[in-house]
Every structure is written in C-alpha cells, then in structure tokens.
C-alpha cells in the first residue's frame, strides 16, 4: 500500500510538473503554493512596515534631527541635511533635556545619509506602518498563508473547496499591495489620517493635504476586502464540507477552529468596512456628505462603522495566533490541550462578543456617556473568554514533559505577551480611567502587546510548520537565539510605552519636546527607540536562518515533532493532492502521552485494536 501510495505521489508529482512553471509557481490553484505566496508576500511587507517603525522611533527619540539613511527620499517628505546641520540639530535638543540621552549616537548615525522628516510625512509613516502591519502582514500571513496551507492538510482534504477562487484571492491581494506601496510615490504622499482614518480629516482632501494617496489607501483596502472575502468563503466551505471521514467538529485541531471562526468574522465584518470605505471614497471624490457635517453628514458615523468592523478585526488578527499557540503548547508539552471544549467555545464566545464592544474605542468621542457604560460592561465580559484561554494554556503546561523547541518558545512568548496585553486592556475598558489614557502611549503599548505580540504566534507557526511547508528543518540554535533576542527587545521596546502613556504622552505626535510636561519622560523615548532598533536588528538572525534553511536546511521527515495532527502524516512537503490515501480520523488531535500506546504521541489517523478504540473516545 505504501508503495502504491508512493507511486501515486510520484504520479501527482509528475502531473504537478506538467502544469509548467507559471501554473505551478505563479497562477497556482494548489492551496499549498497559494499559502506560500501569501507567506512570502507578507514577509516582504513585514520588512517595509518594520522600517517605517524604525523611522518613527528615530523621530520620537531625537525629534527634528536628520534620520539616517533617508536622504534618498525626495522632498517634500524628507529635507536634505549636511553634517553641520545634523550636529547642530542634535545639540539643539539639550535645550529641552540636558544632557540629552543618546546625543552622540544620534550625531554620528544621523550624519550617515541623514535627512529631516517633514511632519506631514511622519503622519504618513505611522498611518502606513499600521495599515501595512495589520492588513498586509498579520492578516495575509496568518489567515492567507497559514489558513490556506493548514486547513486542507489538517482536516484531511486534498485541496480547498474552490481552488480557482483561492488563486483569485491571492491575485486580488497583489494589486492591493502594490497600490498601497505605490501610494508613497504619488503627489502629496501616502495616506496620513492614521490607520483609523477618522472623518472629517480623511473625508476632505483639503483638510489633510493628502489627495491621491488617501484615495489609493481606500481603494487598496476595498480590493483587499474582496480578496479576504473570497478566502473566507473558501475556508468556511472547506471546513464544513471537506473534513476527512471521522473528523468530527470536536476532533478538529484548535488552529482549525480558530481559522474557521476567523473566516466567519471576516465574512461578516468586511461588508461593513467595504460600505464605510465606499462612503468615504464618495465623500472624497464625488462631493457626498456621509461624514461631512456641512452637508448634513456625521463624522462620528465613520467611527461607529469603522469600529463595528474594527473590533471583530482585532479578533480576526489574534484568533489564529491563539489557535497556533494551543496546538504548539499541546504538542511540545506532550500533553492533551487542557479544556479542549472550553478553548473552542471561548473562541466562539470571543467571536460573538466582538460585535458588541466597538464603542469602547469611543468613550471620549462625543458618544452619549450612558452608552459608554454599556460598552464598558460588554468589554469587561469579553475579557472572560481571554482569561479562560490563558488559564487553559497554563493547565496544558502543568504536568507536561516540555520540549523547549523554537516554535514552543515563540508560543510561550505569545502567551506571555498576550497576558500583558490583555491585562493592560482592562485599564482602558474602565471608562473613567480611559478619559486620561485614551489616545496616549498606553493604548499604543496595549495594542502592540496584542497585535505585535501576534508576531510571536507567526514565528511559532513558521518554525513549527516550516519542515512541512518547505521539506527542510530550520536551524534550532539560531531559532532559539532569535527568540531570546526578540522576546527581550520586544518587551524593552513596548513595556515602557505604558509609562509614557501614564505620563500623558499622546500618540501620533512627531515631536514630544513641544510639550513641557513630557520633557521628563523623553529619556524613555530614547530607551524605547534603542530597544526597537535592537528588535529590528535581531530579525536579521531570522532572515539568515530562513533563507539558509530554505536552501540548505536538513531534510525533514514526515513528522519531525512527533505530532498527532493529519498534516504530519503527509509527506514533507506534501505533493499535489496532499495525502497518499485519504486519512480516516479515529480520535481528537491532542492524544499525547496516551496510556493506550507506548510512544507519547498517538496520531489522529492511527487505527488501534478494537478494545483500544473504545477506550479512547
């Protein structure tokens, strides 16, 4: 049988080649290739988004001094500086804080191709940093990339339900990506209204000074919404219809649960964003007044629509990382996940509750204060399923036999960051406290712990499934060093932002020195910037490891982690059609250290003797 299977795989392989280069690598309908395309595209965009963050951090640490390596950017975004003006600009900082931290560093590095940043360009930079990281990194990586790769493999299907739709989903995301990057190069620069694009600033080009760039932002996200919608329909259909024999709902891995719930959220949330973006585009280009009070519109309507989409969006981003973390914690603790059903139902609860908490973004927006109380209470309720998940992760570790591999370390890092991000959310859920910390660095710290913390989930997923996806192992030592540095500098960069927020430091300002009450906090900004640079540099280890392993990594076995789920029964990498024979599922995904077998893992598709089958539900 295995010989026949090998022949079948070989035939599939041959057929795969017959498709030719373009059908195999570019316009592929194979979910695995589409998954890889999404992963590569989002890693490229991660570099863009990361570099934008570095520019921002420089500006915040040493305001209005030349930013190194930026002199290639033309006016009116960056203004050229020579060495004398660099030194002068840095020395000028001591007027505010004396001695100014990191002045020598800023002087020497700022003179290397340094240029002055225009404040309007700074607004574009943080707007695009957030837009890229949310819509073009985390979403395509986790949902587009791993959603595509894992769903058919983990439920035992040969491909997605609609392979052509799947291909279209990726190739619709490409023009959206090109458009968002291109928007930097049009007259007036890229969108500068913040990723939330609050009207009326966003609705009238004369108010922000950005015309075409913001239109491209809107159109790009409209197109991206179509792409995600096609993906969502595909995922839902595939999970509902194409599960292998025996793969009941409660035998699905939690990562599949998370992607399924995410797809439903996408399907329901995106139309709201699309409607809002449509209205915004009409206001901008056709003179309608959905959000402009002058014509009878209402700026706060945008906020209601945006956050009605935006809060489910937060769970769209974080749920897959939670699912990945659950799978990895169980695998490397060699233990069943603690409270499987509690984990699945808490994700469903998060999905439902995410629709009725959007007003917590708007406590000081001018919304009726009575409504604020209602949204505060729903927000307090949504914290409960997050707490349930955290405690169940701890329960999974308890009594385990823990293997500290790179994916495990990153999954633990995700849990650790999620705990901090979850707890800091409580401050802002409390309406009176939010009055003070709203729109300060406290919220910046909070959402980076949650959303940038997802990067740990992304790395966990990549290190874990890399052998399956690319057929080679990544270097474990480099992976561990990468984790240690990333974890340390992530916390050094983002934790002090809480202190800034408590001190009242507003977000989205480009020169904190313009405010006297922030002068004493400025050294934190320098500290954060230094940590952020180290965080950025640490990623070079990842890129080196990633590229080296792609080319010359050790060949991976079918099941290098001794894991239970179905993808590990397919070859590494799986051929066209995934499985040599359609697997039959006999049990849940987390039967580690089961007393039924000698080994400490028991794959979902392994058939045991009749008495053993009865014993293991």
């Amino acid at each position, binding site marked *: 049988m295995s010989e026949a299977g090998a022949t079948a795989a070989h035939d599939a392989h041959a057929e795969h080649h017959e498709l030719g280069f373009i059908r195999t690598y570019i316009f592929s309908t194979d979910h695995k290739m589409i998954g890889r395309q999404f992963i590569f595209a989002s890693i490229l965009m991660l570099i863009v988004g990361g570099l934008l963050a570095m520019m921002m951090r420089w500006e915040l640490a040493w305001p209005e001094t030349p930013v190194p390596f930026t002199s290639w950017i033309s006016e009116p975004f960056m203004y050229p500086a020579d060495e004398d003006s660099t030194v002068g600009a840095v020395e000028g900082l001591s007027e505010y804080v004396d001695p100014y931290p990191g002045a020598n560093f800023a002087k020497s590095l700022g003179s290397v191709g340094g240029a002055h940043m225009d404040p309007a360009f*700074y*607004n574009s930079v943080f707007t695009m940093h957030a837009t890229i990281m949310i819509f073009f990194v985390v979403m395509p990586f986790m949902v587009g990339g791993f959603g595509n790769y894992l769903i058919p493999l983990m439920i035992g299907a040969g491909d997605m339900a609609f392979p052509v739709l799947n291909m279209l989903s990726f190739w619709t995301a490409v023009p959206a990506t090109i458009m968002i990057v291109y928007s930097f190069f049009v007259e007036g620069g890229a969108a500068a209204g913040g990723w939330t694009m609050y009207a009326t600033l966003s609705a009238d080009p004369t*108010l922000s000074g950005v015309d075409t760039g913001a239109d491209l932002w809107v159109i790009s996200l409209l197109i991206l919404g179509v792409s995600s919608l096609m993906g969502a329909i595909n995922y839902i259909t595939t999970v509902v219809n194409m599960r292998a024999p025996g793969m009941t709902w409660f035998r699905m891995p939690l990562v599949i649960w998370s992607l399924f719930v995410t797809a439903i959220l996408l399907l329901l949330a995106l139309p709201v964003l699309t409607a809002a973006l449509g209205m915004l585009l009409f206001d901008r280009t056709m003179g309608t007044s959905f959000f402009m009070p002058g014509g009878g519109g209402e700026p706060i309507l945008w906020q209601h629509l945006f956050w009605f989409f935006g809060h489910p969006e937060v769970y769209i981003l974080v749920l897959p990382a939670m699912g990945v973390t659950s799978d990895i914690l169980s695998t490397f603790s060699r233990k069943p996940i603690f409270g499987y059903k509690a984990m699945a139902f808490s994700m469903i609860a998060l999905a439902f509750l995410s629709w009725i908490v959007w007003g917590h973004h708007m406590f000081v927006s001018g919304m009726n204060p009575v409504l604020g109380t209602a949204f505060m209470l729903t927000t307090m309720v949504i914290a409960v399923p997050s707490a349930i998940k955290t405690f*169940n992760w701890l329960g999974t570790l308890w009594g385990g036999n823990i293997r500290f591999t790179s994916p495990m370390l990153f999954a633990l890092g995700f849990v650790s960051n999620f705990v901090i991000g979850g707890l800091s959310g*409580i401050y802002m859920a409390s309406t*009176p406290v939010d009055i003070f910390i*709203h729109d300060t660095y406290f919220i910046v710290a909070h959402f980076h712990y949650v959303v940038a913390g997802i990067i740990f989930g992304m790395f966990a997923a990549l290190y874990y499934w890399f052998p399956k996806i690319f057929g080679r192992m990544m270097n474990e030592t480099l992976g561990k060093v990468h984790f240690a540095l990333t974890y340390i500098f992530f916390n050094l960069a983002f934790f002090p932002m809480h202190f800034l927020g408590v001190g009242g430091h507003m977000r989205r300002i480009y*020169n904190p020195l313009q405010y006297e009450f922030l002068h004493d906090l400025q050294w934190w900004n320098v500290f954060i910037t230094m940590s952020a640079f180290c965080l950025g540099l640490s990623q070079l280890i990842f890129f080196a490891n990633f590229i080296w392993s792609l080319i010359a990594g050790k060949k991976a076995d079918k099941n290098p982690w001794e894991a239970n789920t179905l993808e590990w029964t397919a070859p590494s990498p799986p051929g066209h059609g995934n499985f040599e024979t359609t697997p039959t599922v006999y049990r849940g995904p987390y039967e580690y*250290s089961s007393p039924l077998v000698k080994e400490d893992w028991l794959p979902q598709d392994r058939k045991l003797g009749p008495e053993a089958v009865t014993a293991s539900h």
Partner: protein
Amino acid sequence: MMQWLPEDVSPYGGSIDALFYFIYYITAAAFILVTALMIIFLYQYRRDDSRRAVYTHGNTGLELVWTIVPALVFIGLGLASKSIWEEVKLNVPETDVEIRVTGKQFNWEVLYPGPDGEFETADDYQVDNDMHVPVGKPVRVFLGSKDVIHSLFMPNLRFKQDMLPGRLIEAWFQANKAGIYEAPCAELCGFGHSGMKGTLYVDTPEDYAAWYDKRWPPAETNGSDASAAETTEEVLASGAVMDAETMPDAEAEPAATEEEAVSAEDVPADSAAQ
C-alpha cells in the same frame, strides 16, 4: 508608579487615579500569579524522558473557577467604574463660568461670553489658545470644531473630550490649584497636530478678577462702548491671536517666556500674577 501620573488638580481626578491604582494592583496580582505559575511549570515539567506527561483533558471544576472568578472581578470593576464615570460625565455641577472652545487646524479658539453671560453677543471676547478660569470653580465648557476632529486634553485635570465638527459638546472641569497647565490636542488632526496646544491659566480669585476687569472694565460694563471696544477685530489687532505660522516659535519657548508673552499681549500690569 504613583509619581508617573501627572499632578491632579481636579475634583474627580482623585477617584479616577484611585481606580487606576485599584486596577493596577489587580492586574499586577494577576500578572504575577500567571507568570509565576508559568515559570514554575516550565521549570518543574521540563523535558525528562524518564517520565510521561500527565494524561488529562481538563477539569470542569477548574474551568468554572477561572470563568467565574474573573467574571466577578470584571463585574466589580465595571460597577466601580460606572459610578465614577457618572460622577464625572453625568452630574454636571451648576456654575456661572462658561467658555466655548472651538478646535481649528491647529489652534484652540477660546470664546468668553463676557459680562452678559451670553455667547455670540457684542461683549464676547475671543482669543486663540489662552483659557483663563478661576481656581476652585466649576467651568462649563462647550466644545466644537471648525474642520476636523480635535480632542481637548488637560492631563492635570484628567480631562479629555473629542470635539466634533457640526456638534457642540457640553462638558465641565474644575481646577483646584492655581497655575499654568498645558492643554494639548489628543486626536490626530492633520500635519500640524503635533504641537497643537493651548494654555490653561488657573487664576487665583484676585488674578482672575484683575484679568476680567482688564478685559471688561467694571465702570463700562453697561456701556455699549466697552462692548464695542472688545470686538474680535480689536483683539486681533492687539496681537492676542497668534496665527498658525507664529505658533511653533511661541511653543518652543520655556514657561517663563510664555508668561511674559501673555502679560505683554494680554494684561501688562498683571505680571505679578504668576
């Protein structure tokens, strides 16, 4: 942690800060609990091939505990927050001090109603960025915007409220300590958002009276001349209104110069006020 919150001079700030610290202790306890358990488990249950992991799928009792306990804590926090929120937002105290602050790219336009207590009358006084209020008295503030959404943020008063074009939002604050406080804009409002700020002058009763009498001389308050003399045009001519171009320079100055600038343009005889 205590000294990181800016000094509070408002009547309700104490409650907000107390709630903040209450949440701080709860979250710190939860953080320490979870982190300590995690570290202990990671050490205690590190890989050891001589034993097997505990084979368990969960524990319903534990699930109930860690569902109900956080739920009760969150409901408690919600109720505590609700009462303070209502104290701040819904119980607006009676007062006769009213101002109107209108955001515009990139200044606060401050409008005082003058002796008649009515806005949009001839004795109004309008100035950019300078808010004069008496110490220890509630101030009713009407917030609006001319262009985009701004947000009036006064850290020392624990006050923040967005200002929407097309709406006049009523709010209140009270400063219990005389002094000069910064009042930045907290909502992204365009290329000049960074650096958009006003100054709140919380005057002692004497200083406030002096400022008020200078603006609306007592002998002439009933005369139409005085009202006419304080039209916006005259104030503009006197240089009290700074336009966007001159703002950055003024902001870059330290506090002492700001005071001088104000005394020069506003109340020359009043330099002893601060």
